[in-house]
């Protein structure tokens, strides 16, 4: 869940051997990030087995349903784990994600270019750029809708009736779509701006992110 896209806001300069690396993530953040990745894709795969008929053979026997629930527990507990293990970092992430200022508005004007690989003339940003803030807000919202609808399906099964079931599954499916699109964008920017190493080694080049 902790979807800190590490997309530098300025072009990576002279990424030669002399580039200075600075630590952006502590190991616990990396571990939480990768638990999130694994649980998300398990949930997606075992969920889509019910959504997309050609994959329904994956759901035979009910094992996929059990995996979906195990993934769900990990997925739901992640924010709590983050908060308990690193309360300050977690709260900082939330605070930063939901703070918008003039720079963000300026950044949004350059968003189309940023999507297309151009970082020229981007206004300077803090630790998170405006696009990441938007991404965090959307993820926060859909994390809650997917979790709530999922728990209702899990524990309410058999008591929901046709209306209840379809309403809840519709919320679950739309949240799944939203989270998938957010995930595609997340992966896209990670590879476009070569930011994967941030979550693998925990380190990024000094001049990549601003204000670390």
């Amino acid at each position: 869940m902790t979807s800190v896209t590490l997309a530098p806001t300025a072009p990576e300069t002279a990424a030669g051997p002399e580039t200075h690396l600075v630590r952006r993530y502590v190991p616990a953040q990396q571990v939480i990030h990768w638990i999130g990745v694994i649980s998300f894709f398990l949930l997606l795969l075992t969920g889509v087995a019910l959504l997309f008929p050609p994959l329904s053979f994956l759901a035979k026997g009910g094992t996929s349903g059990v995996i979906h629930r195990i993934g769900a527990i990990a997925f739901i507990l992640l924010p709590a784990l983050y908060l308990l293990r690193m309360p300050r970092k977690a709260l900082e992430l939330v605070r930063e994600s939901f703070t918008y200022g003039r720079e963000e508005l300026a950044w949004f004007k350059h968003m189309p270019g940023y999507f297309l690989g151009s970082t020229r003339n981007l206004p300077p940003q803090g630790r998170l750029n405006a696009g990441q803030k938007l991404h965090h807000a959307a993820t926060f919202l859909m994390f809650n809708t997917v979790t709530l609808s999922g728990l209702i399906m899990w524990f309410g099964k058999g008591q929901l009736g046709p209306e209840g079931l379809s309403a809840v599954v519709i919320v679950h499916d739309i949240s799944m779509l939203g989270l998938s699109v957010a995930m595609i964008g997340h992966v896209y920017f990670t590879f476009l701006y070569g930011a994967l190493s941030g979550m693998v080694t925990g380190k990024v080049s000094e001049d990549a992110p601003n204000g670390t």
Partner: protein
Amino acid sequence: MPTRYAFSIDLDRCIGCQACVISCQAGNELKDDETYIHVGEQIRGSGKTLWGSFDHHRCFHCADAPCVAACPTGTLSKWNGLTIVEKEKCSACGYCTDACPFKVPHIVDNHVSKCVACLDQVKEGQAPWCARTCPSQAIHFGERETILAEARAKVAALKARHPNAQIYGETQLGGLGLLMILLDKPEVYGLPLDPKAPETMKVWQSVVQPASSGLSVLAAGAMGLMFVFARRQHGKERAEHERAAKQKAALQTAQPKATETHHD
């Protein structure tokens, strides 16, 4: 024209003996605690106004079966008017338990549990176990048209004793594959007058499900295409930037003093 089979259950003839329940369990090799048929009773009033009837709670084999629409794995499907079950496909998701307006399917041992219409028997030209076993001939099975005609005749005969007698299932949900001959109004038996699959079910099945998988794939494809272009642009800008940085560095090492004064 494929055959359309149906059951009928005549609640005037039913003696509540549970023979259908037992033969169904035995014939389908169910565990002791699993049953496809529940036979209960309805009792009203007392003394002279005492009224009673047995009732059966079991799959109605709806033509437009909401359970079949909701089933994501093809475990439940329609075959010649019957709602059949391929247990080995079941994922135990339980959507059918909520989709059924009669609350018939259950999850037992990680798979759906409901009447399987004794498909093997029927395919061999035999009636299902319940219909074959019933000692009072309350359960019939055959072509729906024949079964319906029989049921109409029976209701006509019942009217003298039971003015509210009627067939349940002639039209509901596209016509049920189990016609229940009732002695009184459906409400008395707790049967819904107009069972329906709500609009939201159709929205889920025919709009939300295909749209969410389709749009996800579309987004991935579009981003993939965009990636090729964007990566090239980013590389170009990076090269430009590097060139500028190198030039600046070269200038600085060549005439450090001069550049400094320049900048001042």
